[in-house]
């Protein structure tokens, strides 16, 4: 329980899949509380005793289904079941008693659907709840409107419910757009960082070879420490450290043979291939998640300047306001990239055709991220001349 609340208070550090699970647990807790509360409230409802028993028991069964779905890692299905559960509970209240607090249940159901922030669920279930709400308000108006009430009170109930639905729809659409944009930016950043780390791995490999040291995974001290530590942890969690030792052997074996050759080998079992695939993310010899997390850990201790002004800006106009200087900067960058491309070709021993020289080296780059419109226009207007003079002619 303590662990769960710690997660809830720190959801900003957790990925979407984890948060989704937390949401289902929270909704389940909330629905369980509401269901327990419903037992004494059932005495006010116009249902037969049998109907009340069946409904409450049915709700508890559904609660069990949700638990099972979570246990078998099916949070998306559990979300749908929890929404249906809330609608059933809402129907139980609204069809059993006509009162203002039954009317509140339309809002409670809507808020549960909103909580998941899934546009499709909101459009399907949310719309259904609003339609039922309008029907309830029109049908059971005598439970909601007092004799001295204002003119058109029943329409105010409806208007506010519809307004509540629409505002939340706008909010979900807005959030959806923000999250898509943010996610895109995040993925874009990850791609570029992956590219930097590709080169970092290459340079570190160079440093290692110059020092005549063996790769870390071949180092016996490293292997011994990893064997011992993983066994120590496994014995405490699973009371058996033997399995992890085999896994460690497989981990070293993947480094020696290569992940692809293991996956392509017909003689290796499916289970072993599956485990190898899981371990593939954590190889030390390639630009994997493991390597990335290590480098990101290391750079935390890198000497870094405290310059915060334009720290993350890569726009030339933040370096200088003068157009002529921006054009010089553009040319220098063009020349640098042209040289880097040529260097890559030499390393990979790829012959360059005449057509390739004419290919725009900024094809995949969003120039607006770096240059102002005047510089981009200058580039477009003088493209042939730039290629002629600036492309590395080696």
């Amino acid at each position, binding site marked *: 329980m303590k662990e769960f609340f710690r997660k809830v208070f720190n959801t900003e550090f957790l990925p979407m899949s984890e948060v989704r699970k937390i949401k289902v647990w929270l909704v389940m807790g909330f629905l369980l509380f509401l269901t327990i509360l419903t037992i004494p409230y059932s005495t006010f409802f116009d249902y037969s005793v049998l109907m009340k028993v069946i409904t409450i028991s049915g709700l508890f069964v559904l609660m069990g289904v949700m638990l099972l779905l979570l246990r078998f890692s099916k949070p998306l299905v559990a979300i749908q079941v929890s929404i249906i559960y809330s609608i059933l509970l809402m129907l139980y209240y609204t069809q059993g008693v006509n009162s203002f607090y039954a009317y509140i249940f339309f809002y409670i159901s809507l*808020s*549960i659907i*909103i909580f998941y922030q899934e546009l499709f669920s909101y459009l399907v279930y949310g719309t259904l709840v609003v339609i039922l709400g309008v029907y309830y308000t029109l049908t059971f108006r005598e439970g909601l409107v007092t004799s001295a009430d204002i003119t058109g009170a*029943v329409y105010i109930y409806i208007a*506010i419910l519809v307004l509540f639905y629409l505002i939340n729809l706008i909010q979900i659409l807005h959030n959806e757009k923000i999250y898509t944009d943010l996610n895109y930016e995040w993925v874009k950043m990850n791609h570029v960082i992956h590219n930097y780390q590709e080169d970092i791995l290459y340079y570190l490999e160079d440093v290692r070879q110059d020092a005549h040291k063996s790769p*870390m995974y071949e180092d016996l001290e490293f292997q011994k420490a990893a064997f011992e530590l993983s066994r120590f942890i496994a014995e405490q969690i699973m009371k058996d450290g033997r399995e992890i030792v085999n896994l*460690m052997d497989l981990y070293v074996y993947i480094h020696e043979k290569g992940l692809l050759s293991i996956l392509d080998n017909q003689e290796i079992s499916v289970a072993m291939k599956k485990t190898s695939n*899981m371990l593939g993310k954590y190889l030390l010899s390639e630009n994997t998640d493991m390597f990335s997390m290590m480098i990101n850990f290391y750079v935390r*201790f890198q000497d870094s300047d405290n310059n915060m002004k334009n720290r993350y800006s890569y726009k030339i106009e933040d370096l200088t306001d003068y157009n002529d200087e921006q054009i010089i900067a553009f040319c220098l960058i063009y020349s640098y990239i042209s040289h880097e491309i040529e260097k890559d070709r030499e390393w990979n021993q790829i012959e360059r055709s005449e057509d390739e020289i004419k290919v725009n080296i900024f094809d*995949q780059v969003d120039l607006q991220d770096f240059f102002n419109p005047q510089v981009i226009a200058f580039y477009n207007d003088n493209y042939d001349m730039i290629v002629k003079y600036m492309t590395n002619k080696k």
Partner: protein
Amino acid sequence: MQTKKTHAFSEIEQYREYLEIKNLRGKNYIVSGVFFVMLILTVAYMILTNYSVASIIPIALGYLLLLIINFVLSAYGDSEYSYLKMNKYISTLGMFSIATAMIMFFQSPSFVPLLFVAYCVCAIYQDMKVLIISDIYFIVVIILTVVNFPELLLAQNSTGGSNFSITLFSILFLMMLSISAYIIMKEKSFFYNQIAKSKELEYRNIRLLIELKHKTNKEDKNFMDYYDHTNEFLKAFSEKIELPNIFEEKIAILKDLEANIADEKILEKYSDYDQRDLIRLRRLLISNQNLLAKIGVKVNKSRESSIKKREIFSATHFKSFNKQSDTTEVKILAFVIFYVALKKGLLGMKKLTNEEIFSTITGTDYFYYIDSKVMKIYQENSDVFDAIISDAFGKGGTS
């Protein structure tokens, strides 16, 4: 044990705030739009049901005042962010005040759900302080309504209805809304954190990349050629447009700066320039850790990446040792490899101390990248971990 974890990079706070503010403008437009629609609906209802002009004007003025404040503060917010923040709180208080005023004025239970609408309008801001203000205001108004107008919420045919039930269910509803708003707020923070962190990681990775390139002698020794190519091209360009070559002198200064010629000598040679020009031009040097060199690296690496649409919605780019798809054994092994590799140290990188490793893993967001059971064992047995490492590596625990 420290319960609240910090971000691995303290520098990201400013950028996080920038992202927050960038999205706040869009939220302000939505809130203003809702105020406007509510103004129209309220006035239309009052006109249709024959309320006097004297009754309509105060409510319409309330909405209009709120709208004007919203526009003014949003406009000022373009130059000073604090106005945008102020706008959130004023809009929240204003929205709840109008809702309360309408409940009091009309004295009809049908207007009580307006508080729910007020709450969800304010939830658009996704701000903790706004959330607290909304919660307090909501509870106070519901209790005051029930206490001062007990007959208001009891309808004619309320068999089971009581003021207690209404208050209870309203508070339950509020609870659900608050939890929902809180988690949504945190979800949004997740992206802000990741993007801000990626920005800082990019900044530091570029720096490391240039450093290692230099260390391994892989950097281009002929970078002066870049200036020559640039000069050659811009000379031809000036001839083409038949204007004097305004670039030549600056390129010559850049070459002198690259050659580490003293500023005084450069200024002596180019009397039209002063120290400020040199400071600015120094940023345009393409070698080493200069700013233009970093931009060059970024442009070059951006060139090599393209994103497929399905990747945007994939969770695989979240790097951790706590992936749902991994078995417990794999999670244990991933952490152990990471930990032992850090202890062993990467050749070419700064050696990290035991304290640096422990405090970063347990005190920053790295804490959440590791399976909670594994993390618990590490926190409770860090001495055992060190002893195992020392035993395997020999004295000192590091190679």
